[in-house]
């Protein structure tokens, strides 16, 4: 499959869809009792309307004026170095989002210690003291926040 694109086309489409969905959600999400023409819906409408308008402009700019990249998607594309690097970023995002789930159940100390180990493994770290320093730091942060700042971390 042959694809012609640039970041303007991709982001233009994404924001056009996002803004259209948000615009349709306004009546259900902002259920105001105000009867005046300027009310709680006004500024969100201006912001979302602006997003809609400017993403249409961005899309037009991407289609008509900016240079486009041409990519040929084949089976080989999925084994290239650049694809692997992109996959790494996605994996990193998944690790961070999973951390928020683990944090809910295991609490700050254990979840953050686990996150530290997973991130260092992700970077392929082998030196033991590279693990020890941030792990000790997690303990120090926990102690400072709980005892000195009186923040009861989960």
């Amino acid at each position, binding site marked *: 499959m042959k694809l012609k694109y640039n970041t303007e086309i*991709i982001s233009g489409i994404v924001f056009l869809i996002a803004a259209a969905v948000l615009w349709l959600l306004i009546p259900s999400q902002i259920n105001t009792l105000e009867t005046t023409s300027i009310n709680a819906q006004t500024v969100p409408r201006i912001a979302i309307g602006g997003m809609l308008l400017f993403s249409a402009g961005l899309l037009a700019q991407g289609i008509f004026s900016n240079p486009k990249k041409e990519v040929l998607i084949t089976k080989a594309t999925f084994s290239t170095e650049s694809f692997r690097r992109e996959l790494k970023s996605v994996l990193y995002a998944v690790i961070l989002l999973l951390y928020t789930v683990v944090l809910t159940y295991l609490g700050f100390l254990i979840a953050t210690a686990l996150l530290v180990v997973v991130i260092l493994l992700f970077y392929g*770290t082998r030196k033991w003291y590279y693990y020890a320093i941030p792990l000790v730091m997690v303990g120090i942060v926990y102690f400072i926040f709980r005892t000195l700042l009186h923040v009861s971390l989960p």
Partner: protein
Amino acid sequence: MEAFLAGLQTLFQWQNFLIIPVGLALGIIVGAIPGLTSDLGIILCIPLTYGMEPTMAILMLLAIYCGGTYGGSITAILINTPGTSANAATLFDGYPMTKKGQAYKALSMALFASTIGGLISAFALLFLAPQIAKITLLFGPAEYLALAVFGLSVIAGVSNKSIFKGLIGACIGIFISTIGMDNISGTTRFTFGKINLMSGINLIIALIGLFAISEIMMKSQYNPRTDKKTIDASSITKCKVTREEYKRCRKPIGIGSLIGVIIGATPGTGGGLAAFIAYNQVKQSSKHPETFGEGEIEGVAASESANNGACGATMIPMLTLGVPGDGATAILMGAFMIHGMVPGPMLFRDQGNLLYAIMLGLIVVNIFMYLIGSVFTKFYAHITRIPYEILACVVLTFCTAGAYSTSNSLYDVYIIFVVGVLAYFLRRMDFQLVPILLGIVLGPLAETNFRRALILSDGSLSIFVTRPISLAFLLIAVGSVLLFAIKNHRAKAKEIS
């Protein structure tokens, strides 16, 4: 004059000179940790001041306030994460300077500019407080909206690669700022039935997600074997600010401090807005605007002088009118009351000597800030030598703890990671994050005053152009956008030819 001399006498006691460095050190630490603000530092230390003399107590809290505003620049420069919202504009050039191996230089300039801004602000508080307060009293909803529009005009300067992307970013920011309960009508907006979203998305939480988490995500493809840079310890502090650079930064610091004082004295604004406006003005008036955003020392000087320039000035409406300028001064106002001083016009008459001691003390606070900062800047600069994989873990730890502490809620932790991942994808699409931040910062100021102004004018938009101060701000905003457009057009034409 009598009160002034009595104030000097009250100030020059050894206890005061001992407590100021303690307050500054606390403030710098709190300011440098993303998620913790000087507001929190002041709140935590108020109970410690109960047994102190009023002057000593207020000076300690003021030191935390000023130290916190400066401290936020350290992380903005070193790890692309402003410690407080007031330092957001510092990362435009601060972090690029660190990437170029000039972290020590950027930190030194941030300290110098913060000190000068703070000193000018302290002198303005001492000598011009009543006059400045009178000017800010002229500000009504129309003027505040015009001021917010003026602040938003910065977008033109920071999104010169694609104005559409900058404008979409601003719309996203304004949209985020509307989430939660509407202040005027009490209507909930885009909360999707979640109680945790009723109070909206906290600015600090958005900052951590937008900058800290997305920055860590940007380095997800970092390979320690190939990308690791070995930095020689002795070379870090060699890159000092030259005499020529100090000379070059005189004008940006002057503009920044002046803007800081004016914006800071206007209630409901704050150091963050002052820093953005100062940065924009300095960039516009520069002979080499194209170097801004690429590690230009003048950019750091402008934003840091402005946010610290706002510190003393936020006290002007509080002390003269009894109206706190921002969150920190509202807390300080409470501290004044705890110590038997009621801010307002009567304070000058009833407790003039204490008030002068505090205002003079603010000058001493800024001098101490420079001395303490100078000693520690060398150590901060060495943070750049920490292997990235360790730094990422430490930053994530602080961000999580800091985000949680904002309102003792796990919800804020979820938000920083979700915002961070989304911001990462935006950065990959060549979006600038600053317009989003501007939208979040200025959205509430713009919305509240837009609606108030239209209520006052019975829905007529003419209120924004018939009031002279409002019209002046709007014209300057339009003028600065046009100026940027012309400059960009010329630069592009030059590139083509």
